[in-house]
């Protein structure tokens, strides 16, 4: 994969303090965790309900065995990008 370039010179947004920007950026990452965490909690709730009612829990477990890792991988990529890009800035 070739390397992306662009965004060469760094200038601060007028009126927007670095701190505020950082807080919003980490809040975005937090929102992603909440969103995907919410979906995984929902899927788990459906397994629990199916289990409790004896309502073919195998279907819920089977589907969640695929769905949960997919959502976790997506979350992993999101956090990798946030930590990778924001972490690099704070190091310098």
């Amino acid at each position: 994969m070739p390397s992306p370039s662009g965004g060469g010179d760094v200038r601060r947004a007028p009126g927007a303090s670095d701190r505020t920007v950082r807080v919003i950026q980490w809040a975005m990452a937090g929102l992603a965790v909440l969103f995907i965490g919410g979906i995984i909690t929902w899927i788990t709730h459906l397994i629990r309900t199916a289990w409790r009612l004896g309502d073919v829990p195998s279907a819920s477990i089977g589907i969640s065995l695929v769905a949960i890792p997919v959502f976790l991988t997506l979350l992993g990529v999101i956090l990798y990008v946030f930590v990778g890009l924001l972490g690099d800035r704070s190091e310098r």
Partner: protein
Amino acid sequence: MADRADTRDAVLLAPIELTGRGFYLTVGLLSLLILWGAIAYWTQFDEGLGVTGLHQPVSWGFYVTNFVFFIGISHAGTLISAILRLSKAEWRRPITRMAEVITVMVLFIGAGQILVDLGRPDRMLNIIRYGRYQSPLLWDATSISAYLTASIVYLYIPMIPDIAILRDRVGKRKLLYTVLALGWQGTEHQQKVLNRAIAIMAVLVIPIAVSVHSVVSFVFSMTLQPMWHSTIFGPYFVVGAIFSGIAALIVAMVAFRKAYGLHGYLKPIHFRYLGQLLLVMALLWFYFTFAEYLTGYYGAEPEEMKVFQAKFSGPFWPFFWGMVLTNLIIPILCLVRLGRRTIGKVLIASLSVTVGMWLERFIIVVPTLSNPRLPFGEGIYWPTWVEWGELAGSFALFALFYVLFTKLFPVISIWEIREGREVGLKEVEERLLTYLPDTAEPRHAEPERGW
């Protein structure tokens, strides 16, 4: 070099910096259609689904047709962007962003159709509280959630270097661009992170997208209804989705090429390649349609034949033959020889396919419900102004979202274009050498492993 490139790509930033009269006119026109859709929805919300043409046994009509159609179009982003990116097709550079935007926008519109179809949107809470994974409808909810999340991430990550360009060059919306650029400065580490994330996402979105439309087809094929209970519905729907997705992408490309003067970026060669892809998909779609209908006809099961005849020569014949005309005959006539006027021919074929694929979704959903296996009388479905309003509003909302996106972000990936000029040419040359016999392998080429 960088400065020259900046000037060359100024046209890509122009729609963000300047707003012409055409923009306001477009937004005004689309808003009128959306208003029609909003009034239609309010009427339905206030008075109930009785104001629509939906009834027993035809309980799914325009809304579910729209749902399948819009989710299908979302495959444009996956196919064009992810597959072309992975296969390192260099001509992808000016079109990937447009494709990815279509995916995200139509997924919102498509999923929204289910809310409209429910009549009472509060019933959505029942899915969250009491959903049962035995139902393919819940498989749909799960896979569409995964696809929407993946598509947003896959749209956003490759946009980061461009957002950084906007942060540094454009005088407005500084806070927005600064936040979304995630401190991008193009360092080696950041590039490594971004490349790896894009590569992972490109691999991940393909199976997710295929699963989404397979699952959409399961909503039909898991029932025992005539002409729905089919084992090939999964791949048939996926092929149709890719087919309609390419058509929608071409229409969007022609529109933005004209509106934003992108002639230098979206060249006839791009339309030629996409046109050829569209032609291949038209033939593939026909193959699946033929296989599907021939199997039903040969079996001649009485309930199946009722639906079959309703489509071929019964009340639904204009839709069925209209679908054949727009999905097969017109595209073949337009695309089989792309000598002169490539863009015009490809556009006509794409508009035709867009109409045809909507008809195809309609022809799958409604005739079966009109002639169900259960002992109902034959049901005739006539959409009312409410459904027409929702249809117009949905298309207009999609177009409005797209236009607003182009006012905030470049519709063509600037960094990928620059990279194509600076690195791509050399890389392609080196790669070409690895394909040819009796030429030296470039230094960074992978060593041969195994046999």
